[in-house]
Structure formats: structure tokens, C-alpha cells
């Protein structure tokens, strides 16, 4: 494999990883607070793709992006209100089944509304501009993705560490009951968490689909699961961990495909998950907790 090929692969991997990282943050935030694998997160990401298609059909791109992000955020909050909130005191299995149910519903609903035929993702011209660096060529969005990801993560970290809502979020994720006793409005914090997670999924969706150009009702399933793995890998509840996990999975997956093991690229992600859970269940950067008897 020549140097250019390797560089090109790395670029692809980093770009993919950036999009994964943005989705993984949603998983990690929600899991940190509700201890719930939000199976529907991948489908929120997919729906954001459809929103963008429709928004861009009738608005110029800056407005379309704003519309898409707003609608996606609202959808995330709405899903939490409708499907998770009523089950807050139910056993964990029920809420997880509810999450799977939402995912099932979103997939079927979008199949019904938009048909299973892949929709072409509209181009935002400046994002698709092709850059040629030596023999490596890439579109602007490929280069933009990792940069934007890192900027967003820094902003998010600042928010979480320095604002009141951020503090509340951290408190809730440390101890749900105590936080509630301390007068934190749990529902607001959870809504905020879902809002941030969905917003980032929306951004990730725009970056991901602009680079990959087609949306189907099932586009969200596998990326969703992989990003969950990324979140676990980095240590669930840990934002920088999720980002590193996202990049890691993106790059390794790309390399596996590049080496001709595309059959195993998905399997690898899950193998990574299992190995990680067995060797270091708290993930790379997760904190160890002692279970009380």
C-alpha cells in the first residue's frame, strides 16, 4: 500500500470517526443520566437526514440547517417525554424495550412516509467542494468533520463544566436520587440532555450524509450501534471518551475495509465492545464504581 493510499484511508477514517463521535456523545450523555441505551438515537440521526432533505428543498442552506437542527432537537425531547418519561420508575428492562420500540417505530414510520427507496441527500455546494492535496483528494466536508467535531466538543465541555445546567447534569449523572433531593429539576435536566444529544446527532447527520449522500430508513441502525460501542469504549458518561471512541472506531473500521475484511468491519466493532466490557467494563476513561451489597 502506497503512502498516498494510507493517507487517503486515514483521512476517510478520521472523517467517519468525527461523525461517529458526535453521535456517540448523545449516547454517553443519556446513558450517564438515565442508564439507558437510547436505541432510538441512531434513528433520530436518520430522521435528521430526512428533515434536511425536505428543508433544503424549500429553503437556502443556512436556514435549512437551522430548521433541521431545531426539529431534530425537538424530536429528541419529544421522544423522551413520550416514551421514556412514563417509565422512569419502571424496571430497566421496560425502558430499554421502549427504546427499541421507538427505534422500530421510527424506522417503520419513515419507511411508510418516505418509502424504503434511498433518498439522495442534497448537496450544499461549498461543503462538497473537492480539494486536491498532492494525490489525495477529498471534499471539504471530509476535512471539516473532524475539525468541527473537536470544536463542538470543546464548547460542550465548557458548557457542562461552567453552566448551571451543566452542573446539574453532572450531579444527576453522579446520583439520580440525591440530585433530586437537592432540588434539581430532573425532568429539565433530562430534556436538556436529550436536546444536546439530538442536536449533536443532527450536526453529525448533516456531516455524515453530506459525505455519503443517501438516506434510507435503516441508515441509522448500524452507525447507531457502533456509536454506542464508541461510547462504551471511551467510558460511558465520559464525553472526551466518547469522542476518542468515535474516532477510534471510525479509523479501525476504515482500515479493516481497506485491508479487505469488510465482512468483519461490523463484527469487529462488536468484538471490541465485548472485549472492552470484559477487560475494562468502565471503558478507557470511565470511573470505577463499587456496587453496594
Amino acid at each position: 500500500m502506497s503512502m498516498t493510499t494510507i493517507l487517503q484511508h486515514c483521512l476517510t477514517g478520521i472523517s467517519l470517526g468525527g461523525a461517529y463521535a458526535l453521535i456517540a456523545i448523545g449516547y454517553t450523555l443519556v446513558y450517564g443520566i438515565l442508564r439507558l441505551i437510547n436505541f432510538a438515537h441512531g434513528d433520530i440521526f436518520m430522521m435528521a437526514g430526512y428533515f434536511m432533505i425536505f428543508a433544503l428543498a424549500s429553503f437556502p442552506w443556512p436556514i435549512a440547517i437551522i430548521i433541521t437542527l431545531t426539529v431534530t432537537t425537538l424530536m429528541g425531547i419529544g421522544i423522551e417525554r413520550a416514551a421514556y418519561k412514563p417509565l422512569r420508575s419502571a424496571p430497566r428492562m421496560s425502558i430499554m424495550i421502549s427504546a427499541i420500540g421507538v427505534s422500530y417505530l421510527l424506522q417503520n414510520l419513515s419507511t411508510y412516509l418516505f418509502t424504503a427507496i434511498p433518498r439522495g441527500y442534497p448537496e450544499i455546494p461549498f461543503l462538497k467542494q473537492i480539494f486536491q492535496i498532492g494525490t489525495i483528494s477529498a471534499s471539504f466536508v471530509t476535512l471539516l468533520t473532524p475539525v468541527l467535531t473537536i470544536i463542538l466538543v470543546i464548547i460542550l465541555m465548557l458548557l457542562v463544566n461552567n453552566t448551571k445546567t451543566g452542573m446539574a447534569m453532572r450531579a444527576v449523572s453522579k446520583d439520580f436520587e440525591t440530585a433530586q433531593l437537592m432540588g434539581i429539576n430532573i425532568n429539565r435536566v433530562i430534556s436538556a440532555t436529550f436536546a444536546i444529544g439530538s442536536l449533536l446527532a443532527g450536526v453529525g447527520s448533516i456531516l455524515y450524509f453530506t459525505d455519503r449522500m443517501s438516506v434510507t430508513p435503516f441508515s441509522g441502525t448500524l452507525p447507531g450501534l457502533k456509536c454506542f460501542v464508541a461510547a462504551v469504549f471511551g467510558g460511558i458518561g465520559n464525553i472526551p471518551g466518547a469522542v476518542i471512541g468515535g474516532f477510534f472506531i471510525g479509523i479501525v473500521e476504515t482500515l479493516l475495509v481497506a485491508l479487505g475484511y469488510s465482512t468483519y468491519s461490523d463484527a469487529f466493532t462488536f468484538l471490541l465492545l465485548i472485549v472492552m466490557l470484559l477487560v475494562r467494563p468502565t471503558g478507557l476513561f470511565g470511573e470505577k464504581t463499587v456496587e453496594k451489597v
Partner: protein
Amino acid sequence: MMKIRRNQMLTIITLIVLVIFLYWLNAHRHQNGMLVSVLTKGVILSLVAVSMNLLNGFTGLFSLGQAGFMSIGAYTTAILLIPVKNLDGVYYMNGISPSIRAFKELVAASPQAVQILFPFFALLLGGLLAAFAAALVGIAVLRLKSDYLAIATLGLSEIVRAIFSSPQFDQITNGSYGLNKIPNFPVMLWGAIPSLITPFIIVAICIVFMVMLIKSSYGRAFKAIREDEIAAQAMGINLFKHKEMSFVISSFFSAISGGLLAMYMRSIEAKTFSITMTYDILLIVVIGGIGSVTGSILSAFLVTAAKEWWLRFFDQPLVIGGWHVPLFKTGFRMVIFSLLLMTVVLIYRKGLMGTNEFSWDRLIARFTKRRSAKGGAK
């Protein structure tokens, strides 16, 4: 005592009626193709649903690996049963591994008795392979708790799928091309039980086994683990051993169900056993009631019938008196279905049966209550 006697009688009568119905159905299978296929698929899914319930409902292990174990059963059964004469046709692209071919030729040349029993052997072997795989994997993943276990088992089933579809195993699993020309269900007892009824018999045996297991001391230990792991352990129950048992048995029966599915579908591919399949089974278990065997069985039939048959008209454009009813188009059925699932999850959390089992007493009580209520109104 009277009550027990009566209930036994009722059960026997129901069974006889069922058997007569099945034989009638067998005689008229061509006119009732849809009914036959819904019932067959229903009975196969009820087996995997019950085995999922054994894990999720009775042992409290939220596992999403059913599809993976089903695929092990399905592939084993299929590879062993594809007739030798069709091998070249099925493996038209890469050929079949010579050792498998030699083995199959050996079986084909063996005495009649062996050949008659061979399909059952194939099912059993599929089950045992899955059980073995589960035992190995269980050592690792059963240490995980609730949602981690769920996602790890989901991942496992995806790994199994990747292995089955990988080009490296083309000569065994026919990788990308899937397997077809799988023979239909075998007849049993020298034709006394026609092939249509075979799956019902096999599934009945398997489910009876699981019910007896649940009722046994080991089943009680499973329930204890579901209720409270720490207390169960303090009561001297070896958590790992019992979880592993439940996991292995559940996988064994999932694989049997997978093998039956292969015989029913006559053609399988790795894609069939994807995450969606597991979700569909989960849906059956949830609707039926987590922790109820009869609930799972009932729900397997209801869900299959509704999905494949009764609700199909949702997908067709509907015109009533010249008015084109909106909403009715392809995909609507599945939307209705997902909404139904969400309703069960959010409102009727217990599903059809909750953790109760079907009992004649309850049924009769329900009817008499209604009648007496009516009588009272008069």
C-alpha cells in the same frame, strides 16, 4: 380434586381437537395455504419466543442474541439436509467443501433408518452446536449486567452473522449466496405424522421441556436470580452456573427453532438473522407478557397472523364507496404494528398475560363472572 379432573379433561379435549384440526388442515392444505403458513411460522416463532422468555422473563437476563443462535441452528440444519443432487446447484459459485460432500454422500448411502432419522439428528446437532457456542460465550458475557449484556449479545449475534456471510467460509455456508433447496419438514412415525404436523410436534416437545424446567427446582432458582441476584447468591445459588444453564438451554432451543425455520423457508441467508429478527421476537415476548410461557405462545401466533395476514390490507390502497381512504399504502401495516408495540410497552406493561400462565380456572372464572354480572343486571 374435581377441579383438577375437570381441567385435565378440558386439556385433553383441547389437545384432541387441535390434533384433529391439524390433520384436517393437512388434508386441505392447498386451500388453506395462508393459514398453514401462518400457523407454521407462528409455532416456530413461539418456540424461539419461549426460549427468549426463559432467559429474559424467567432468569432476568436481557439477552438479544436469539437471532445469532437461530442462525447456527438454521445453517447446520440446512447444510446437512440439502440433498446431494442439489449441492452443485446451491453451491454454484464456489463449490462445497469436499469433506461435507463426502459426509453427505455417506449419509445418502446409509440404511433407510438412518436417513429417516437424519433430519432430526440435524436439528439436534444444530441445537447442540448453538448450545456449545453459548456455553463458551456465556463464560465471558454472563458476567455483564442488564443493558451491557443486551448489547453484548446483540453484538454476538452480529458477529455470528458476519462469520456466516463471510467469503472465507464460502465452501461451507455459501457466504453471500445463502442456502436453498432445503427439504421440507420430515414426516414422523413412518408417515403417521405428516410433514405439516412435524413442526408442531417438535415445538410442543421443546416447550413442554422448558415448562417442566421452569417448574423444577432449577427453574425456581432461575426465578430467584431474576428477582434478586444478591439474595439468590446468598441462598446458595451459584449465579454463574445457573445463568449459564439458562443461557445454554435457551440457545439450544433457539437453534432448534432456527433449524425449523430453515425447513419452513426452504432457503436461508445470513441477512435473515439480523437485528430485526431479534427485535421481532422481542416484540412477541413483550406483547405476550415477559415471564409467561403461554403468553409468548399466544402472542407468537397472534403477531404472526396479524402481521402476515390480517393486517396486510393496511398495505393495500383502500377504497370505500369511491372514497380513497388516505393513509392506506405500503408500510402502513408496520406503522400500526409499531404503535401497537409502543402501546403495550407504555400502557399495558404486562402484555397479554403478564407473568400469569393460562389456566382453565381463570378462563372459566372470567366467563362465569361475566354471565353472573349480566344476570345481576337483569
